[in-house]
């Protein structure tokens, strides 16, 4: 993909992962390398798929943790032991 588009996109992806603290330092490094490799292909598809997967996966993880935390809190509030 054209570096003028792919470089900001890769930087944005890595920054987002870093700021959300969703990856370990090693994971972040590997993810950055992976994103760069995806950006090397002349088509936009590989990097786009990576981004779609990353954001989709982050979203559903958030849904799960939010739901389970709420359920746990609900149980703790109502249980009488």
């Amino acid at each position, binding site marked *: 993909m054209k570096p003028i588009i792919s470089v900001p996109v890769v930087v944005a992806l890595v920054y987002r992962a870093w700021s959300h603290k969703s990856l370990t330092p090693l994971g972040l490094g590997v993810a950055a390398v992976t994103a760069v490799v995806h950006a090397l292909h002349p088509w936009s*598809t*590989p990097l786009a798929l*990576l981004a*779609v997967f990353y954001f989709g996966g982050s979203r*559903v993880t958030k849904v*799960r943790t939010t739901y389970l935390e709420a359920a746990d809190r609900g149980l703790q509030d109502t249980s009488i032991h």
Partner: protein
Amino acid sequence: MLRLSSLISLSRRNYAAVAADTFSSELGILSKTRPRLITSLTLREVPPGTNGGVTATGLAAGLLGSFTVALTSAALLPFCADSSGLRDRALWTGAMTIWGLVGSALDSVLGGLLQASVVDKRSGKVVEGSGGRKVRIIFIFLTLGQN
């Protein structure tokens, strides 16, 4: 039909399966029904979190996951001149969505066949080490008599 370089082909198939797997793992655990073991002939029920356990919710979530990837690639991939129409892309999206779920189901089958799920006897819940590591099972010997 559609002719794409094999690297791109592998890439999109991989992401469809991986997205299906992630969505079904994250959202499937929220299912109200107990999972059934995909490798069991009787599809017996297992505790939530068991490797190889699937629910209808999880499978539906998997379809959603692979659909996001399939739709993205159908929108972005430059097809060949003879098959770039909307109908072809729609069919291709559908096929890729299902294929992604098949990949995720295969992962469940492998999990059910090859991965041991450790269940905490007290709570009946499946336990895992952080990062998915296996929990170390420590045998506790009760010493009788001495204090």
